């Protein structure tokens, strides 16, 4: 019988012919630790009795949630991280370059076929380049740092096919939100999502990142895309035959197959306070809003900012509404400056913050209070995620978010 992409990646890593449900030990290609968890990882690592990293080159430490510190104790995380870097000879460290998930592929740490783990649930993002990546806790990370290995259960795969051409102003964010709504917040728990179809092939790697990033919101272990020429360009590599062959076999065993016709899809929002509470934007038109947030590892990339800038061109953010734009990385920020995107957004009245997690991680960047409503392009609208439990969070695409900012209420892009 044939294999799904994820079975192929795990199979090649372990040298075994694997099937869903097998418990196997994999050799890890990359790990990512971010600032919130480095003190815990460092503690556990030493508590476990390790004295050296299994391979310092494969470890990436990224400060993003706490940069710059909004509470005085936050800087302790930098001090602990810096000490860990020195002590164990870590070379890959980013102290203010942007969001971890953006940097892992942008800076070339994760390539097609890799197996990568990170101390963050949105580690699923790296599936955008055809890697198997998933989030783990800091204790598990400490053991991977020492051993370079991790046991996993080979996941079942759900195949999602999107064929055709997406209508104007319908983005990959609408695709993944719609899918999460259909699957439910736990509809893919322990499973892998494999994306294919002509609409997926037409997407940029950045758009695929949005989808892979949010796979976790359906409970998925990971999400994967077949590496293609766009992937090769993005990663700055020439694809090998092995990498090119990372596609689902026709006779692979899928636990479920879901097909969408792209032209049927419409702009949607995840309504408070579940990610799977999906409704078409047109049903929500007119709901007043206080703030709009465009950013995060889900939708803080150049194409997202360009899309927002195009929609806001010649317009202004509505009075008494704030539009906060947080580019996902230093590189994106600079590119968006170079091509005039940030200037256009600023001209429209956007507040452009430094690259990082910003509002999405709920520690700074535009926290809200009781009775306020925000349209946001990030990945979670959980209760209390961006302030008090009486803040209403609507998740949307950058196109929808930008249109809402100009209107001061929910509108279709």
């Amino acid at each position, binding site marked *: 019988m044939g294999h799904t992409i994820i079975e192929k990646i795990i199979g090649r890593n372990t040298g075994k012919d694997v099937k869903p449900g097998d418990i196997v030990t994999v050799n890890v290609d990359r790990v990512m630790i971010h600032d919130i968890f480095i003190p815990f990882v460092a503690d556990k690592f030493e508590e476990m009795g390790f004295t050296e990293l299994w391979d310092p080159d494969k470890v990436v430490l990224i400060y993003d949630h706490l940069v710059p510190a909004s509470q005085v104790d936050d800087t302790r995380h930098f001090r602990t991280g810096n000490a860990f870097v020195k002590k164990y000879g870590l070379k890959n460290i980013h102290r203010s370059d942007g969001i971890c998930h953006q940097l892992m592929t942008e800076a070339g740490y994760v390539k097609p076929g890799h197996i990568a783990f990170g101390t963050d649930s949105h580690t699923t993002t790296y599936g955008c380049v055809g890697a198997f990546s998933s989030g783990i806790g800091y204790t598990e990370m400490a053991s991977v740092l020492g051993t370079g290995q991790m046991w996993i259960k080979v996941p079942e795969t759900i195949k999602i096919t999107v064929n055709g051409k997406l209508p104007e102003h319908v983005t990959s964010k609408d695709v993944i939100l719609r899918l999460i709504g259909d699957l439910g917040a736990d509809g893919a728990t322990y499973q892998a999502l494999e994306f294919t179809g002509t609409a997926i092939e037409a997407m940029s790697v950045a758009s695929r990142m949005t989808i892979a990033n949010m796979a976790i919101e359906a409970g998925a272990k990971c999400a994967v895309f077949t590496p293609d020429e766009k992937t090769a360009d993005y990663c700055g590599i020439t694809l090998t035959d092995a990498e090119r062959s990372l596609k689902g076999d026709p006779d692979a065993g899928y636990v479920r197959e879901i097909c969408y016709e792209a032209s049927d899809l419409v702009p949607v929002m995840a309504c408070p306070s579940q990610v799977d509470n999906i409704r078409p934007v047109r049903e929500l038109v007119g709901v007043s809003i206080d703030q709009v947030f465009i950013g995060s590892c889900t939708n803080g990339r150049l194409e997202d900012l360009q899309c927002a800038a195009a929609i806001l061109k010649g317009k202004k953010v509505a009075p008494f509404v704030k539009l906060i734009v947080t580019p996902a990385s230093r590189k994106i920020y600079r590119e968006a400056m170079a091509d005039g995107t940030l200037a256009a957004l600023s001209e429209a009245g956007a507040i452009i913050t430094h690259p990082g997690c910003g509002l999405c991680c*709920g520690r700074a960047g535009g926290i809200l209070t009781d009775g306020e409503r925000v349209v946001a392009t990030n990945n979670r609208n959980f209760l*209390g995620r961006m302030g008090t439990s009486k803040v209403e969070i609507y998740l949307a695409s950058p196109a929808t978010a930008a249109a809402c900012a100009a209107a001061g209420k929910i509108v279709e892009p």
Partner: protein
Amino acid sequence: MSETFSGKVWVLGDDIDTDIIIPTEYLALKSVEDMKPYAFSPLRPDLAGQMNPGDIIVAGKNFGCGSSREQAPEVIKALGIRCVVARSFARIFFRNAINNGLLLIENADLHDAVTEGDTVQVEVNRQITHNGKSYPIASLPANLVEILEAGGLVKAMRKRNGLD
């Protein structure tokens, strides 16, 4: 792994996410002990203060969905919760809980049957008993039992590294 205990039940709903279990703003507090009072605060601000060691959480589906923050199972463990019974668990939470030696049990029916404040009896890897009715539970895979029996992943690794 065989063990029997009983405890008072706290009932929670479906999709209890990690931001509910411990909100992001408290994650940078120095220790899990410092975070304890804020557990479940977005949903039930008083709950953490009411829980006692040995209590049991019974929840609906997808318990622990959301982020990979390990403080979520840790804070539950720090509150003295003996085990969490849920219809289903989110996967990162599941791994993290096992790695920290927090027992999780999947059961589809108990949630509908219990009322907060009830007492249930748990026989690990066998069944839960409530009001005279028993609810069978599945055995854990061997590799997880190994970690749980070692008392969590840290202890398992210490053993591997010849420290314990």
